[in-house]
């Protein structure tokens, strides 16, 4: 049972964690929050943005602040699954040879899958089990991953030549998809200052432990959400399906597949974590609203007409939000 002290301690930890990350990362507060929410929800995060926006630095900073084991995988077309999950190798010990499992980079607490869409689908799929079940199976052996565990993937929306878009099954396993926007003028100036003067960027010291994260996860799951808001989330989700009677006209016209039930879980859990990070003790409607795009955008598949006409999924989600009434 969560006590008042647990609640206050967990909130204090994440306040410190947020502050230490923001000392390194200029701007991108919503990205930092999304990453922490994914961490609190046992989820994974995919960051999408052009090169040079600080995606890798962000992931490294989060890992450093948490004091967790960090690994980075640079996805390339020739990357093989064994390069990620590890493989059995022959070792000799006391004159005896035997196979010993050599863990891959996936065995860490924070895994950065950089430019994940450059690897082949076969290699991308090597992450599926790790992301969802938090286990890795090699041969006949299954190895658990250490908690807290989070995969932070990045992908480049341009330079699509030679890339392999993530299959729907894999992209659905990411709790959120966050678009890393280009920094504003002030943020850009600040970035230049921090990187070109003094000692340059220095990763923060750890401000939280794995136990703090696990405790905070328990607190988040205890945060209440009203039944009416659950119902609201379900109605929002159904409205993204083109065949649903609640779907807005543009969704019915341009969407091939709507969001999966996993999206509802992501939205509700994420809303709880969002409320926790903001110091609230219950889920509010604005928690759902703030995470609505991040939780659903990557789960909606446009049809040919939508793709041909360049329809933005975020616009469709705005339609859904406006279309679905607050109260049943």
């Amino acid at each position, binding site marked *: 049972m969560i006590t008042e002290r647990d609640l206050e301690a967990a909130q204090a930890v994440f306040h410190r964690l947020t502050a230490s990350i923001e000392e390194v990362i200029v701007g991108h507060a919503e990205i930092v929050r999304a990453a922490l929410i994914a961490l609190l929800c046992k989820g994974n995060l995919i960051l999408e943005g052009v090169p040079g926006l600080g995606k890798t630095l962000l992931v490294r900073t989060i890992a450093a602040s948490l004091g967790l084991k960090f690994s980075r995988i640079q996805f390339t077309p020739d990357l093989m699954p064994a390069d990620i999950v590890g493989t059995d190798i022959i070792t000799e010990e006391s004159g005896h040879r035997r196979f010993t499992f050599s863990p891959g980079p996936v065995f860490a607490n924070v895994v950065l899958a950089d430019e994940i869409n450059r690897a082949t689908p076969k290699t991308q799929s090597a992450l599926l089990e790790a992301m969802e079940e938090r286990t890795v199976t090699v041969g006949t052996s299954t190895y658990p991953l250490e908690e807290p565990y989070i995969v932070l993937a990045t992908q480049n929306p341009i330079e699509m030549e030679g890339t392999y878009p993530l299959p729907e099954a894999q992209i659905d396993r990411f709790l959120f998809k966050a678009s890393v926007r280009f920094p504003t003028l002030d943020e850009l100036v600040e970035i230049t200052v921090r990187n070109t003067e003094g000692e340059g960027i220095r990763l923060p010291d750890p401000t939280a432990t794995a136990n703090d994260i696990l405790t905070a996860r328990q607190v988040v799951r205890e945060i209440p959400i009203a039944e*009416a808001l659950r119902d609201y989330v379900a109605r929002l989700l159904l409205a993204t399906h083109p065949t649903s009677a609640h779907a807005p006209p543009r969704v019915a016209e341009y969407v091939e597949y709507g969001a999966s039930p996993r999206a509802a879980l992501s939205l509700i859990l994420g809303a709880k974590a969002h409320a926790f990070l903001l110091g609230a*003790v*219950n889920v509010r*409607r604005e928690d759902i609203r703030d995470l609505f795009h991040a939780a659903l955008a990557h789960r909606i598949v446009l049809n040919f007409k939508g793709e041909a006409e360049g329809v933005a999924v975020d616009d469709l989600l705005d339609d859904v939000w406006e279309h679905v009434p607050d109260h049943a």
Partner: protein
Amino acid sequence: MPFDFSRFLLAVESRARALRGLSIASRAMTCTSLAALVSVVVIRLLRVPFAYWMLILLALPPVAAALIGFTVGRRRHPRVSHLLLRIDDTLGLDAGLSSLYELRQRTTASVFRQRLEREVRDAVATWQSALPVGRRIYLGGFAGICGIALAVGLAFVPLPPAAAFPFDALDRVSEQPSPDLLPADSDSFSTPSQDVPPPVTIKTEDEVAATAGAPSLGSPERDHTLDDVMRDLTGLAPDEAVLVPVSPDDIEELARSQGEAMRAVAELLESIRDRLADAAPTDPPQLTEEEMEALQRELDHGVPPDLQQGLNELLDPSPTRSVEEIVEDLIDQFGDEEERDRDDGGGEGLPQSTAMSPDQEQIDELMDELGRASADAEEEAGEGTERQSDGDGGPAGDGDGLESPGGPSDVAGERGIEDPDQLGGTDGPGGSSDPESEREPGFIRETVQGNIGAEGDYVSEFVTEGVPIELVPGSGDEEVSFRLDYDRIVSILRERGVPEGAIDIVRNYFNEITEGGP
């Protein structure tokens, strides 16, 4: 004071149930009151007799529906979480109440509950504003009450004239004979058809005797409905009347009683005249109370309208003329009336409407109608002289497409000139609504030699089928002419029950076209 969330929930649920009940009640009341309003409108338009106790039946369903709706609405469990979220949104509580309700549903204690209670405690004081009595409830209730009031008010509103309603016009079309075939005074030619049921009139039992002496309808105005005619006859609205079948025997009985009443009045007038003549010159010439009562009694029993005026003048306490003059005039009028009755129907008490002889103008109009109808049949007429070979007015069809009318009465009925409605105010099928009237008229056209002009020009004449005519072969190039046996015609018509007035019409017709010649 600690925040009692359970009591708060009960209050919210109770108010929500009440609002739900009111909502359903207002809708049910609106619908049923509209139904009641429509019912009243239909009842009034159809002129169904309306009793005031029916107002209770009108008001009862909306009230009952409202009560049932309220009960049903209250029985339905509201979704408390949604209600609380609505209160949260209204009061700006960030889903605090609904989240608190969620925590209350859990069995385990939670650290968030106390914090939430602290946050919402002060804000819920005005929670009722989040669940207001909606405008729809007010509008529904208002509409329901207005519907009931309108329905009740409509029940008291007098009906507009029947002619204002289009379907009355349709009724007139079906009730009245075809205007093309209907003479101006069609009731003079009317006689009960063999095929139609006994005539039925709309009269109260008390008014039967009075209406027997009512004036003839004369030419019915085409924008008058049967109801209007009956109202003129009886002085009663249709919904105040009862259906009384009247047979010809009843009519004769009524006419006989009216005749006796008139004779009684005549005798009373004569006695008054004699008394006034014997009275001393110094006595003022005025009626005694007994005489006035007797006259008033006879007046109430019903006398012809032209005599009513004189009787009223006599009963007037300050007449413009002397009593002797009025009495003399009345006696003369009664004499004229009796003589007219003898001329029309032998004074056998036939209703005035059926016993009246048509005047010459009416005969002319009928002749025009007959001429037009016969002209239509002219092309189809074959050898007409062969059709009268049997001379008994029976079936005479010889394959020329013309129907045998079977007699004058049938002819009249088939031509639609018989309308039982016009016969003493009777009601029943007839006229143009009878499909029989669509058949060919029972007249054929013959070319015969008349006596018009010095040389005896050939004229086209129309001979009623079945009328016995005697063919007279011409000499040389002259065509065949015919001769009519009037006595035989009259005997045939009487055998067939044609009224005397109608027989006169036939005679006048032939007199007219032959100018008294053969």
